[in-house]
Every structure is written in C-alpha cells, then in structure tokens.
C-alpha cells in the first residue's frame, strides 16, 4: 500500500502535466510549486487525524446498535457502519504514509506555504453563526441582511452604509419574492405583522 500515491500519480501523470501547465501565467503563488518540488506538507496529518476520529465515532455508534436480524433484513443496520469505520482507519493510515512520503493533493500542494488567514475565517464563521442564532427571533429580513452586511465587511468591504443598504434590499426582496411569492419557509420574526 505504501506505493499507492506514487502509483496513482504515475497513472494519472498525463493529467498531471495538463494541470501543471495551467499556472504558467497564473498568480505568483503557483510558481513555487512549479519550480521546486513542494515541501512535505505535514499539516495534512490533521486530515488523517480527522479521518481516524471519524472512524472511532462511526464504530462506537455502530457498536451501540442492536445487532438483531429479521427475516426481511438478514444483516441489519450494523455491518455498513462497521465496514466504513474499518475503511476509515485504513485510509487514514495510507494517507499518513502518503503525506510522510511527500505526497500532496490535487493542486500539487500549492497552498502549503500560503498564509492562512484564520482571523478572517473565524470572523466569517462568527457572522454566519450569528445568523443561525438570530434568524428565528429577528426574522430572515433582519438576520439575513446582517449576514450579508457582516460577511461583506469581514471580507474587506469598507462602504459600510452602501453595503447596509444593499443588504436591506436583498433581505426584503428575497423575503417578498421567495417566502411570500414562492412559499419558501423563511421566518418573519419580530417583523411579523409588519411585513
């Protein structure tokens, strides 16, 4: 199994070359991946860990299931998750081997050295969560507008008022168009009776 990744790359080598040629005139970040072999991207081991944890979760849950079988269902609900759990462990192990041998994903590990802007991602997730928390109380028009406004600001927009206006228009338009017009299940929230 150790040669799995290398063999796979040899097999799809033709496509690799096609994919490699793409960034020639592309953004600078691809150049590093083109000229030098990408360094070992050990952050990928997080993926292996994730797969292994998922495997544990799947097997623990499967163990809890009653292993009964009925005449109309000889194997019951248990075998599939157990097989999935075992496969998850196997893939996690092969993945780790591939990473340690310097393997990388589809884009040739082009993102390995890039700066990962965790602050922006975190803020965006916070804005998103805020919408989930507020949507039933404030209603889609307000919480959805806040979602649009917040996301745009987090992603770098500096026109606070214009963005807010656009957000409000979008919120109202989608509510009237989709919820009232097409019967989509969007909550009116505190604006119930006003809209």
């Amino acid at each position, binding site marked *: 199994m150790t040669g799995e990744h290398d063999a796979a790359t040899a097999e799809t080598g033709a496509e690799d070359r*096609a994919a490699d040629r793409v960034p020639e005139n592309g953004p600078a970040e691809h150049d590093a991946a083109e000229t030098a072999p990408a360094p070992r991207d050990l952050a990928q081991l997080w993926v292996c860990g994730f797969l292994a944890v998922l495997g544990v979760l799947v097997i623990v849950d499967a163990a809890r299931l009653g292993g009964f079988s*009925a005449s109309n269902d000889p194997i019951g609900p248990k075998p599939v998750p157990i097989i999935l759990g075992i496969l998850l462990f196997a893939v996690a192990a092969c*993945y780790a081997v591939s990473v340690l041998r310097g393997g990388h994903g589809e884009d040739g590990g082009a993102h390995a050295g*890039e700066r990962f802007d965790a602050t922006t991602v975190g803020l965006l997730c916070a804005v998103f969560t805020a919408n989930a928390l507020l949507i039933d109380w404030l209603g889609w028009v307000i919480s959805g507008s806040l979602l649009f406004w917040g*996301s745009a600001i*987090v992603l770098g927009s500096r026109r606070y008022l214009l963005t807010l206006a656009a957000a409000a228009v979008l919120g109202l338009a989608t509510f009237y168009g989709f919820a009232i017009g097409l*019967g989509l299940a969007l909550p009116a929230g505190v604006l119930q009776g006003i809209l």
Partner: protein
Amino acid sequence: MDNMNALLDGFAAILTPGNLLIALIGVTIGTAVGMLPGLGTAMAIALLLPITYGMEPTQAFIMFGGIFYGGMYGGSTTAILLNTPGQSSSVVTVLEGYKMARNGRGGQALATAAIGSFVAGTIATVALVFVTPITVDFAIGLGAPEYFAIMVLALVATASVLGTSRVRGFASLLLGLVIGTIGIDAVTGQQRLTYGVPELANGIDIVVVAVGAFAVGEALWTAARRRNGKDEVVPVGRVWMGRSDWRRSWGPWLRGSALGFPFGAVPAGGAEVPTFLSYVTERRLSKHKQEFGNGAIEGVAGPEAANNASAAGTLVPMLALGLPCNATAAVMLAAFQTYGIQPGPLLFANESALVWTLIAGLFVGNAMLLVLNMPLIPIWVKLLRIPKPYLFAGILFFASMGAYATSGQPFELYILLALGLIGLGMRRFGIPMLPMIVGVILGPMAERQARMSLQLSGGDLSGLVGGPVSWTVYGIIALIALWPLAALVRRRTARDREPEPASAG
C-alpha cells in the same frame, strides 16, 4: 418511434409562454451561478432547488434543464477570462483559452466555446434520446445484486479514476458515505450516527451538503486567502468568429462531442479524461501545432465540446439507472427524490411525460443559450467584476436562505457551516470534492440494494454476487483497484532496465 412521439409531446409541453419563461430564468440563473468562480452547475441547481419547492415538477425540471446547460456555459467563460477553472472539467479549457484572451482573442475563444457547447450539447442530447431507452431495456433485467455491483463500481471509480491521488479520493468518498449513513435506517428504523440529536434523524440533505461544501467552503476559502493576490479579468473584444476560426473549430467540436458523450455515459467516466483526450487529439491533428500553448482555438473548441457532451452523457446513467456519477447528476437525483420520483428503469414507464419534458427542456435551454448569450457575453463579464466581498456575501446569503428553507430550522445552518469548514479543509489540502457528493447520495442506495440482495438469498453472502453482469462489473472494479499495482511493476521494470545502456555505452 414511440420515443420520438414522446419527445414531441415533451416539446409541446415546454412551448408554452409560461414554461419558456421558466426555461429562460433557468438558463440565466444557471449562467450567472456557473460563472461565479469556484461554483458550478451542481451549485446552481443545489441553490435553486429550495426555490422550486413551490413549483410543479414539470416546471422545476424545465428550469433544471436550463440551469444545467447554463451552468456549463458560464463555467467556460470564467475559465477563459479569469484563468481559474471553476471545475476540474474546465482545466484543459484554461490552457489555450486564457492564452487566447491574453492575445486579444478572448471574443473568439468565448464564441468557439459557446457555439461548441451548443453543437456538443445538441449532439449529445440527441444521443441521449437514443441511448437512454436502450440502457433502460438493459437495466430492466437487472436485479438488486447487479445494481449493487454497478453502484460499487461507480463509487470506486469516482474515488480512484479522477483526481491525482487515490487515497485522497477514497478519503473524500468515505466522508460522503459516513454523511450518507447519518439518520434513521430505512429498514429497521434505528438511528445511526445521530448521537441523540433529534434534528439529525432525517439525515443530512444532499442540498445542504452540496451548498455547504461548494458555496460556503468557497467563501471561507476566499476569506482564508484574502491577502493572496487578486484575480484579473481579461477584457473581451467583440464576440465573433472569422471564417478561419469556423474552419478550425468545427472539426474539434464534432470530435470533442464524440469523445465526451461515451465517457459521460459510463459510470464515473467523468469529464476530465475526454477533455484531456480531446486536447491531445486536436494538438496532434492541428495544422497550427506551433500555436498550441500560445492560444490555439482548436484547444478551446475541442475540450469545451467534450466537456458539454460528457455532462449530457452523465444523464444517461442518472435517468436510466438512477445512478449519479457527477455532482450535478447527484443534485438532480436529489431533486427527483424531493418530488417523490425515483430515477431508474421504471422512470420512463411511470413518469414518461416528465422525463421527455426534461429532455426537451435540455434542447430548448441549449438553443436559448446560444441565441441569448452570444450577444450578451460582455454583460455577463461584468458579473466577474463584482468585488469579492459582495460576491461572497451574496453567496453566503443565498446559501443560508436555501439551507434554512430545506427544513425551516436554524439547525440546518449549523450543519451548513460544519460542511463549509470541511469544504475549506478539502480545498486547502487538495482533496477532491466529487467523491464525497456522490458518496452521500449513492452510499445509502448501494446499502439498500445490498440488503435487498441478501434478503433474497436469505442472508447468504453469495447473494451479493448475482449473474454474469455483476461478475463483469466486479472484474472491472478489480481492474481499477489493481491498475496502480500494474503501473508500479511497469515502472520498477523500466527503472531496472535503465542502467543497462549506460554501462554498455
């Protein structure tokens, strides 16, 4: 000839002002969403699926037909003008297309892509009309063991044939299979992997998975790389083709269509292989070999045609077998299921009118795209100039709206975010997304077929292996699984042989 009559009835159903308007909305939205970098056809349908909940099935499918071709059309525009392949099938288009745009021939590249897509779409849809009923005749004789075998083939093939790394393909596939397992087991009614969360009992909607992984994932990915350079839109000139462009394009269009359709129609053939084959073929056949690498029009015309033809080809297994082999087909299948319709051999018998209207919708949508969009390309290009903050704020806005509407509960939004984070991780580590999406929808179907087979055999494992069809399919699976081993052996022997001439010389 029954099919021809049925198709004509389909056209009759679609050619009403209301339905044409719906088709028009479909192609417009499809093009718009397909153009957005990082999204694609599957995304367009997934985002629009909740909106169609209030429509009649026929109208919804007319719209999906429009979105389907519109999305592909939009994707090629992004590839050519932004140097970003929106989906893996546009990777090859970028090669020559972006070079053409840089050389001031963007208009010609877009035109040959658009007309090529139309030609390929039409040819492939005609092929679909003839091939699907034959496939249905074949499929009607298949039992549960055969279906199980074919589904396993589709799963294994999507995970291992596409992309550059098998282990990452399988990681993605397993993730999808696990997500598909969540919820109440259909046979015994037991809850699996819900960990006591009541909202998970109904499972995770494929729409939420697709929107989360693609749209929210892309938004988070943009946030993560906010300070890493900018995309530059190359200006387009007039969209037209000169006489020599036509002469150089029609051959690649036809050859691309011929390559694309069969690959699409085979479970997990995909669009990557035929687009690449088309590129290589055109380079070999071209009288302008020196232009390849600097913007040869053949290198856009052929792969774009192959891409479209293969996308239409994937509808064959989707409609005839209920087998989705790409993300778009997976989401479409989910759409069928929301209307309580199960694609498969019986679909043509039970829902004949609906299917033929969908197919007629494909023809109409395809023609509309050509007529409406060729002159409108410069306007579409403006969409690519929307500043990223607004673009992705809008995507998050619509993604949240669609996900909330699937069940009317905020819980869907947390699932959406969780899947967005998974999508972010997959982008960062170059893990292909397609096997996951296909796994979510195909996994539970394969399990059901396996349990049905075992039910018929009374629990004897030999029940999983049915007649000659499943033997053949398992043979193909073994071949796919063992192929890397063979390649390894070949490489080893080649390496062993290498030093010999050196020592001799």
